[in-house]
């Protein structure tokens, strides 16, 4: 099809409901429009936080002050962390692709509670604005790091209360989305779609939603307790007031470790959709992937203490958490085995989504193995609070969730907008991004092992080379990100019209128009076959 042609049907993008123009977006309860509202807001905050990250790296290009003072640096890494974790990474995949594709993939017209869905977005925006405002208001940017560890967070004179309130509000958005997804999956699956005929991305969202609902309230109340401690001087965590700082760490990580799985499970779900499509082969070990998702969600709930090995928690606690940390690696490894086996012997089409998905495996594996290094009690003592940890979690979170997000946007973009992006440019952007990512983060493993502490504004000359290479990597990475964004934004209106099934996928979203109509399906489909049956099998 030529570039100037337009699809003939009326899609959700043109649909005129009760409200027109911008109001048709801000008051829309259509899950697809809400998905895009999340996409644009999360993309905006991602760029803001990525630029903050670049500034952090530029500051660290040489020892001593370079472009900012130490207090500004503390504020920057805190706000970078808060935005990335609470606004981008935790909601990211679920809020954008979950909202857009969950109902379609299970054969529904919308989520179970469309108005609640829109409310979740407004709550999200309120929390996000507050988080960014904390950077500028009154006492200066919060300088506690995104973990808000007490007793410092209960005494710091910066805008900690602002940031805590922001994280508390963002938590509500997450809980409401989780409830919505659970009910949607329970109640709105198409006739014939039993649990084990459901595609694997919805499965991953289901496992994630339970963590969102069960874990998020804990951090919410914990952050409120810190506010109460600061404002009312109630001694929960501050030893000076009779509190216990380790209690804060327990409560914080009871949520924040499962939060890693809130980030990574949907990421695994996205790539699990991509591998069969670009291998034209059913997913290998459907049941094993489902069970491993649930196992990761379940076991991942009980490993929080591995963030606390050096804090003085009991010997038996350390033993227990270390043991479970190693256990959780098993279902993760099962998934990797399944993805590779899905590609094995397949008709591989190395398009951009698959490139991102394969790099997801590569980066996630590095992040996972270094996670085991940190999960082992002896090595943890040496590596705790070094830049090794920074590299590890960026490999997991950015290399995992981030690359899966990029894989997802390149996979579903034709369906979301009805246009194709420039595949050649997308592949080049992937190459730049992948190179920049590794040049940025890999040296941090090495200087971390050598003893470079994390969160330090200044460092010894022996770490200079590592930091210098890392900063060069950051610049390459940012170039890659902007190349990717340019491609996606420029071809949004100028790209060739996308067919309904450009990648020859077999799940339900590929059986409807690109972009989908307002109600997705003219008739709710009846499901008779498993989700990943390709032509030669069916």
């Amino acid at each position: 099809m030529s570039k100037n042609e337009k699809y003939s049907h009326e899609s959700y993008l043109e649909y005129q409901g009760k409200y027109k123009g911008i109001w048709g977006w801000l008051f829309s309860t259509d899950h697809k429009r809400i998905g895009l509202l999340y996409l644009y807001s999360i993309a905006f905050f991602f760029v803001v936080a990525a630029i903050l990250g670049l500034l952090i790296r530029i500051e660290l290009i040489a020892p001593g002050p370079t472009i900012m003072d130490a207090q500004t640096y503390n504020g920057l890494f805190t706000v970078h962390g808060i935005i990335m974790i609470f606004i981008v990474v935790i909601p990211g995949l679920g809020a954008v692709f979950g909202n857009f594709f969950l109902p379609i993939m299970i054969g529904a017209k919308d989520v179970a509670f469309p108005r609640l869905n829109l409310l979740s977005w407004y709550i999200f925006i309120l929390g996000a604005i507050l988080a960014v405002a904390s950077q500028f208001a009154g006492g200066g940017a919060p300088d506690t790091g995104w973990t808000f560890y007490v007793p410092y967070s209960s005494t710091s004179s910066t805008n900690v209360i602002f940031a805590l309130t922001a994280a508390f509000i963002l938590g509500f958005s997450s809980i409401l989305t989780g409830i919505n997804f659970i009910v949607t999956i329970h109640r709105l699956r198409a006739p014939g779609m039993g649990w084990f005929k459901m595609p694997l991305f919805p499965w991953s969202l289901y496992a994630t939603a339970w963590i969102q609902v069960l874990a998020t309230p804990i951090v919410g109340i914990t952050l409120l307790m810190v506010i109460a401690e600061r404002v009312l001087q109630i001694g929960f965590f501050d030893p000076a007031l009779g509190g216990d700082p380790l209690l804060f760490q327990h409560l914080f990580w009871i949520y924040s470790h499962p939060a890693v799985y809130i980030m990574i499970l949907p990421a695994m779900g996205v790539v699990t959709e991509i591998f069969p499509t670009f291998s034209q082969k059913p997913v290998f070990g459907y049941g094993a992937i489902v069970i491993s998702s649930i196992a990761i969600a379940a076991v991942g709930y009980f490993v929080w203490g591995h963030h606390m090995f050096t804090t003085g928690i009991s010997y038996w606690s350390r033993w227990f958490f270390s043991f479970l940390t190693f256990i959780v690696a098993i279902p993760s490894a099962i998934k990797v085995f399944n993805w590779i086996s899905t590609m094995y012997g397949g008709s591989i089409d190395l398009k951009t989504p698959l490139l991102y998905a394969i790099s997801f495996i590569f980066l996630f594996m590095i992040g996972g193995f270094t996670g085991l290094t940190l999960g082992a009690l002896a090595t943890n003592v040496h590596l705790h609070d070094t830049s090794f940890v920074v590299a590890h979690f960026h490999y997991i979170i950015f290399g995992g969730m981030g690359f899966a997000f990029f894989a997802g946007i390149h996979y579903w973009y034709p369906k979301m907008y009805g246009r194709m992006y420039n595949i050649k440019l997308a592949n080049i952007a992937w190459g730049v991004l992948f190179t920049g990512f590794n040049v940025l983060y890999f040296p941090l493993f090495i200087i971390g092992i050598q003893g470079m502490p994390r969160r330090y504004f200044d460092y010894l000359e022996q770490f200079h080379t590592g930091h210098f290479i890392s900063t060069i990597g950051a610049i390459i990475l940012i170039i890659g990100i902007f190349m990717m964004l340019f491609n996606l934004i420029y071809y949004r209106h100028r790209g060739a019209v996308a067919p309904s099934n450009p990648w020859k996928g077999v799940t339900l979203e590929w059986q409807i128009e690109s972009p989908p109509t307002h109600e997705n399906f003219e008739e709710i489909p009846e499901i008779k076959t498993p989700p990943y049956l390709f032509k030669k099998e069916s």
Partner: protein
Amino acid sequence: MENKTHISSYESHGRVLISLLLLTMLSVLVTWMEFGVFTIAVALTVASVKAFIVLTWFMHLKFESNFIRWMVAGVFVLFTLVLIITFIDYFFR
């Protein structure tokens, strides 16, 4: 899906209200007693009984399917496990 509506009687709501008030008084009373290492266990037991009453009658769990009941039970199991694991630290520190 069931379309029946279950409306509890005023009498049963009244009994729940009185139970909750009595248990709240108990929660306050036990703070004056010394239970040593069991202080938290006692407080949590009273709170759990209150939660059970609220879930069962006020939140209509009594009238829901077994599937929903098991899901709620699962949440309690999870909560208990989290507490036990946390206290592996506190008891053996």
